[in-house]
């Protein structure tokens, strides 16, 4: 199930909320687990068994690691569990890609192309599970004794499908006991509605423009290609951060506190800063479970750069099973390494806007590597962005860009903290409550209207 749907907003969510709060506090994990499983199985029930399997297997591995005192056995158990978890991830996510790539090698054409479907959220819950096992192995948290609580952690519906990636030690206390004050509930409503509006009112619309630019192929010209890059950048930011906001909001409504995932990445002052603001929970995961165990940046520049390279190969492929994602990862590896090696001091001396400009340009180009899956299209897009391909798009695309321009400006302003600062200023004043209520109603009604309009499709040649 997705959050931005009528089924979720007006069936699943109200029903879950009522059932959850009708049950006495100490039993609330039971309805929550049932709700999680229903949420997961909705639309694609066949992978329910897989997630149940993962949950049970890792629960017992966690217990075993927690009980064992001998360090070699602990290590073996951890390694075995991680191999099983990553093995499942690789099998479901990368087999098709590996086979397709192997088939291109000479003499390998005999292999049949596989078509394995990707289970919902596998990239995210695999990381949850690994964080659980690693935290127990390191002694950061005790193994979970109740399979019910562990199941709630792995399948928690607000975050299981697309994060934020909640590390076990952050959330273990809340699995046992959590409260929801009215201040938390209000904050949850706010986050949920802001996220919904971000996704439905901006991201989806920007997606329409980006699709139009993609469809126009080589006729987009300089203006069209930059508008496309801007549209996709806004789409992915509002889509993903909107989802994270909804996840955190829903978490709060059910008493959980989930970590913040985006901190206005588009106002970053350097690429390094950008990656501290974008998808924070993923960066932290890689830092804690890959980068630092490899030695981090404590063993000289050579090892640091090697570790950075490993992290970015993995980050690239984690985002998708295709060569362009590796290219995207390498692109950021090069930029981050360059900043580490020599650029940072230069940027520090330069005027502030230089760093911001570099960061903006880096993500505009970076997203094109991410969004376009084949290299010839990427090449064509870059050519147009560098001015080799005419100036203006054809009339139809130009018109579309103009139509979406106001929304793009709204999006650009919305990706800075400006609106939030203005909003916070009204805090405490009498107008604050009114503003908040109006915004709440407007966000919900406008988003619902947009969801309804997708299906509004009069059949005008009906003849009876």
């Amino acid at each position, binding site marked *: 199930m997705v959050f931005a749907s009528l089924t979720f907003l007006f069936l699943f969510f109200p029903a879950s909320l009522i059932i959850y709060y009708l049950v006495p506090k100490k039993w609330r994990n039971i309805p929550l687990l049932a709700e999680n499983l229903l949420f997961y199985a909705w639309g694609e029930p066949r992978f329910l068994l897989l997630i149940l399997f993962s949950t049970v297997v890792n629960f017992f591995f966690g217990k075993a690691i927690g009980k064992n005192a001998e360090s070699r056995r602990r290590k073996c158990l951890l390694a075995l569990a991680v191999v099983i978890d990553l093995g499942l991830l690789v099998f479901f996510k990368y087999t098709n890609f590996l086979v397709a790539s192997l088939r291109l090698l000479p003499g390998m054409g005999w292999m049949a192309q596989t078509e394995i479907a990707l289970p919902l959220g596998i990239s995210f819950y695999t990381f949850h599970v690994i964080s659980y096992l690693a935290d127990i192995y390191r002694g950061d948290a005790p193994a979970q004794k109740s399979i019910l609580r562990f199941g709630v952690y792995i399948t928690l519906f607000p975050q299981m499908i697309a994060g934020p990636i909640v590390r076990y030690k952050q959330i273990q206390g809340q699995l046992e006991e959590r409260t929801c004050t009215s201040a938390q509930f209000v904050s949850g409503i706010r986050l949920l509605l802001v996220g919904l509006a971000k996704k439905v009112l901006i991201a989806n619309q920007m997606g329409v423009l980006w699709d139009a630019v993609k469809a126009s192929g080589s006729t987009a010209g300089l203006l069209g290609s930059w508008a496309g890059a801007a549209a996709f950048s806004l789409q992915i930011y509002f889509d993903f951060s909107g989802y994270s906001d909804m996840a955190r909001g829903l978490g709060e409504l059910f008493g959980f506190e989930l970590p913040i995932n985006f901190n206005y990445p588009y106002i970053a002052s350097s690429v390094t800063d950008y990656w501290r603001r974008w998808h924070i929970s993923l960066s932290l995961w890689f830092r804690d479970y890959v980068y630092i165990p490899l030695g981090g940046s404590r063993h000289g520049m050579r090892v640091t750069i090697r570790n950075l390279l490993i992290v970015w190969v993995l980050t690239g492929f984690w985002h998708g099973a295709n060569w362009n994602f590796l290219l995207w990862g390498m692109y950021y590896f090069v930029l981050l390494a360059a900043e580490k090696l020599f650029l940072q001091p230069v940027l520090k001396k330069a005027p502030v806007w230089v760093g911001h400009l570099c960061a903006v340009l880096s993500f505009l180009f970076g997203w094109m590597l991410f969004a376009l899956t084949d290299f010839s299209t990427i090449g064509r897009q870059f050519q147009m962005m560098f001015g080799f391909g005419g100036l203006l798009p054809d009339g139809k695309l130009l018109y579309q860009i103009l139509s979406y321009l106001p929304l793009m400006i709204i999006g650009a302003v919305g990706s800075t903290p400006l609106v939030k600062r203005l909003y916070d200023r009204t805090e405490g004043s009498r107008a604050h409550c009114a503003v908040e209520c109006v915004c709440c109603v407007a966000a919900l009604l406008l988003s619902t209207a947009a969801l309804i*309009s997708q*299906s509004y499709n009069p059949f005008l040649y009906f*003849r009876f």
Partner: protein
Amino acid sequence: MQKQKQERVLIAIFLLLIFGFSVTFWLLPKSSFSAEEKRALQPAPEFSAATVGDGTFASTVESYLSDHFPLRRELVGLHAYGSLICGNNGQNGIYFGKDGWLINKPVSVNPANFQQNLDSIKDFSQKEHLPAYLMAVPTTGFIMDDELPDAHEDYPDAQLLGEAKAKTEGAVQWVNLAGVLSSHSADAPLYYHTDHHWTSRGAYLAYDTFACDVGFHPMAQAAFRVRTSGGFYGTTYAKSGFWFTRPDTLEVWQNPNLTAKVEICEDGQQAKTSDNLFYWGQLKNEDQYPVFLNGNHSLVRLCNPNSSGKRLLIVKDSYANCLAPFLLAHYSQIDMVDLRYFRKTAASQLVKQDRLTSILFCYGLDDLVNDRNLSLLA
């Protein structure tokens, strides 16, 4: 204390909205058909192992919710006007034009289909060895371009009409409407504000032009008795979501001296007869356009017992419904074939059986380019 009160207000509003919509949805009676959208609505989802397993249950639930959502019409309007305010005119395929004009966005062209349609017209006319005419009605946006919003996509009508003329040359005589309609577009409305069709005046100009091409004398405008009906909301209104638009006034031009016999045949059904070209009962509906010959049907036979001789075949879409009543004064019989529904018999057989003597292809440009049924012409 103040803060807590404010929090409670927000929580109350939020829960009221979520649960309000949810509960109202369950309580509202569900209809199976939407008169507004003219389509069957999603019936209640069927819960079974098969539908759950393949995911259709989930998608059906979403459509069911969407189709029967409380305040659906108002929410569609909210989205339409909201997008318009954000500069995005034409979200539902309809431009919010000047002076209350709701105009279809330009035709998106499928060149292969267009070519095939023109080939079908050409082939059929050559095979039948009868005088044939092709009349393509330009779109509202092309003729009424002054009423379009300032920023709009270009209308490719001129090029498409030119192509249609060139590619059927030799087999079919081209009836040039674009010039006539453009030059009269400022006098009185030739198209409706809220519908994609032409008005009776627009159809009259086409009749006048066609008469000159064929060589008979058209009747003067003054000879018709005009009956008007207010409150007409047509197709572009229904699609647009711009619910605050003013309705049109529909005009029916009646020839007082004409006695007509109408026979409406659906494939595989008993024919229904009438002696009136206009179905006044249709004026009670929001979309009144079916007042002309009761809308679209597989085959409509019009007979004029007071005329002698000529018998016309019209291969058509809905534009011809308003035109045919003008033409009937000059023919003893007109057979109107709508290929979207005319499936049981071949048109050539009809030509033979009813001894038809000439052919008129009358299509709105949109259908001439994109309709997929013209290839069934045989």
